[in-house]
């Protein structure tokens, strides 16, 4: 396997009592932003590449694997705040979300369309 699911550093920490108000420190958001900037290709998904927990995530993983593209993966299911913060950052409501070079490429529909047109292979180079 070319990929290993990453875990965000905050996942082992105790949940804070309330979501941090904007302007204050937000460790989950910071960890997501860091993960996006540290990996050329990163997929936020439900479940893991070896055990996807949703058909859309499974299809997106299959497309990336068929292109033999190395990618990092983050499971959003262990903590609902990951998904909340991710969607707030990306302005994208659904999971999975694929980022390449720090930019949101899209969800399953767009990734599959780009795969079929050959654009995805180019974007991953």
């Amino acid at each position: 396997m070319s990929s290993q699911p990453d875990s965000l550093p905050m996942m082992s920490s105790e949940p804070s009592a309330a979501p941090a108000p904007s302007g204050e420190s937000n460790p989950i958001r910071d960890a997501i932003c860091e993960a996006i900037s540290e990996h050329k290709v990163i997929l936020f998904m439900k479940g893991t590449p070896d055990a996807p927990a949703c058909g859309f995530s499974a299809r997106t993983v299959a497309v990336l694997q068929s292109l033999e593209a190395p990618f990092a993966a983050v499971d959003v299911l262990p903590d609902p705040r990951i998904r909340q913060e991710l969607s707030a950052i990306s302005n994208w409501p659904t999971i999975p979300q694929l980022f390449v070079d720090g930019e949101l490429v899209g969800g399953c529909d767009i990734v599959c369309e780009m795969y079929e047109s050959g654009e995805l292979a180019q974007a991953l180079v």
Partner: protein
Amino acid sequence: MPSADEIKQRIETAIPGANAEVEDYTGGGDHFRASVTAAAFEGRSRIEQHRLVYDVFGAEIGGAIHALALKTQTPSKAPIH
């Protein structure tokens, strides 16, 4: 629980000139597939096109609407029926 027809109406109302075909592909009223053609998509990236549609439903996506698979296109690229 929204119906496919409601989803279609809401997309077509919110995006002027849009034509939407919506399918409830599990029959459960929460997983939909929509193909949307709109002149408003012209000049926008796929991401922006999908956001326009997602924005119609706000927090319902991921809530009452578990999944809304999207295919968007501009009228110039739409197949002729």
